[in-house]
């Protein structure tokens, strides 16, 4: 009480919109919880839900791994290489962030589709066809989610003191060893935070997935797709699917938050 009095009254002009914003974010989630038909939950959680959930988790995780493999080196290139035109590159990397995912899906089809610029060669030379496959889901999710990882890791790299890398060099460490043993461990919190964001984004991916990978139950029907389909045929099932997705996302974020993404307290 005393402390509040010392700080003085909070200005209403800020507090009221803040509370409205909070409500705007939380009320729909609360509605989802309230509307959930908890009693008939076990019957609705059928094999299809399990399948879609399993597919979602696998694809989002694979997409995250793909993003880590490609995104960390890309972030390093942007943060450390001194490459000319880095600012422009950085801007390009963020394009998928603002691009409507459906457009991303169309773009992927044009490049990796069976008649696409690269896709036709993949098909002719290796017999690989990505669209409308589980692999296609992973590609679509990675395309949309990678900027989250790159931006997070690049920020961590730019905040890390490059003199530690110089110290490693004077100790005889090659650039690759320095990266592995010195740079990467020092930016690990940024990598984990980026990976969590990336994974969450991949888990929720809809537009690019349905455009590039289509909707085949058991193969490309991830949770968001299943939610959308169920909404037309069986609204209760849609709610159940949504609540499962919500619980999984929140669960993962909460699990990792304490350890890795704790903000300033």
């Amino acid at each position: 009480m005393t402390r509040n009095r010392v700080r003085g009254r909070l200005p209403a002009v800020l507090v009221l919109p803040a509370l409205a914003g909070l409500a705007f974010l939380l009320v729909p989630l609360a509605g989802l919880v309230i509307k959930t038909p908890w009693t008939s939950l076990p019957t609705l959680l059928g094999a299809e839900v399990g399948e879609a959930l399993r597919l979602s988790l696998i694809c989002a995780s694979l997409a995250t791994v793909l993003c880590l493999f490609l995104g960390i080196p890309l972030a390093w290139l942007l943060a450390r290489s001194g490459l000319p035109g880095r600012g422009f590159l950085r801007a390009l990397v963020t394009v998928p962030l603002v691009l409507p995912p459906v457009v991303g899906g169309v773009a992927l089809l044009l490049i990796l589709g069976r008649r696409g610029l690269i896709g036709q060669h993949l098909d002719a030379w290796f017999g690989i066809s990505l669209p409308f496959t589980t692999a296609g889901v992973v590609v679509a999710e990675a395309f949309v989610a990678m900027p989250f990882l790159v931006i997070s890791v690049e920020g961590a790299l730019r905040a890390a003191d490059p003199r530690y890398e110089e110290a490693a060099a004077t100790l005889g460490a090659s650039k690759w060893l320095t990266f592995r043993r010195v740079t990467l461990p020092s930016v690990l919190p940024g990598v984990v935070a980026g990976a969590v964001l990336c994974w969450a984004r991949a888990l929720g991916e809809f537009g690019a997935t349905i455009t590039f990978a289509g909707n085949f139950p058991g193969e490309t029907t991830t949770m968001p797709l299943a939610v959308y389909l169920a909404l037309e045929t069986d609204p209760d099932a849609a709610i159940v699917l949504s609540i499962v997705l919500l619980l999984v996302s929140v669960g993962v974020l909460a699990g990792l938050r304490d350890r890795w993404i704790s903000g300033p307290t």
Partner: protein
Amino acid sequence: MTLNAELRVTRGTFSLDLDVTIAPGEVVALLGPNGAGKSTALRTLAGLLPLTSGHITVGESTWDGPDAFLPAEKRPIGVVFQDYLLFAHMSALENVAFGLRSRGTRKAEARAAAARWLDRVGLDGYEQAKPRALSGGQAQRVALARALVTGPSLLLLDEPLAALDASTRLQVRSELSRHLADFGGHTLLVTHDPLDAMVLADRLVILEGGRAVQSGPPAEVARQPRTDYVANLVGLNFFRGKASGTRVDLDGGGGLTIAEPAEGPVHVVFPPNAVSLHAEKPEGSPRNVWPVTVAAIEQHAHTTRVRLDGPPDVLADITTATLAELRLRPGDELWAAVKATEVHVYPA
């Protein structure tokens, strides 16, 4: 295997032009004010910054030159950085073992050697401590062990004691001095602290504005400074002038009588405690006496330092008794006196 370097670097308006020679076992201190180019010189020797021109050779091998550049990771060097730059996610042992590991030593062997070095710098029992848990002095010792464990040919110390508090500093300095005496390679110490340089180095090189303005053994540099910066470091009144017999006309105005006759351009020094202050003009004895005005008064531990406007301007150290007697205040007009025998003169 003498280290020979002509360090020439141009960066924007700053240029470094410094010749350094270090014999095996010799400790050379690069002493200079901030921005003199000390760190630039160190970085070129470490291989973190290529030379614009010039060369660095150690014995037969060329580290940097017109057609060769050995990057830092290929040079047999050890560096102690100003804030140590210990890897925060590794234990003290892993930090020390890192250099051996990256040069291909097997893990068990590297860890054993690292443990021996930690023991040698007095950190037995701290193998598993993370840098965060170490005190400043302990971190400095880990950094020294990390730099020396690989048996480098050149040891570079960048302000190795600057981050320590006064009490730790004294002890770490004497330990460092002992380790440097045992070290058979070349050592370059970069510092802006004259005491560190005097205690640790066999030879000083004074760097100002990217150029060496003076070099020599510490005692010689302390006795015969050649620039205002050095004179200030060693705490002497310093003047340039032209000598003719026992008379020196100072460049900044005024003149002094000296005991030993000299000719031509000279440097003149005398310590602040050789200056006595008088309210009335003192008579008799072959003294230098001139009117001065008190500009500033600083209280030091045991003496009071008075800054006086001349010409010539001088610093005078006086006792508390004298201070009380004269009741000095800025603006007071006094007479300064220095015995001719206290004045040291040497050719410019």
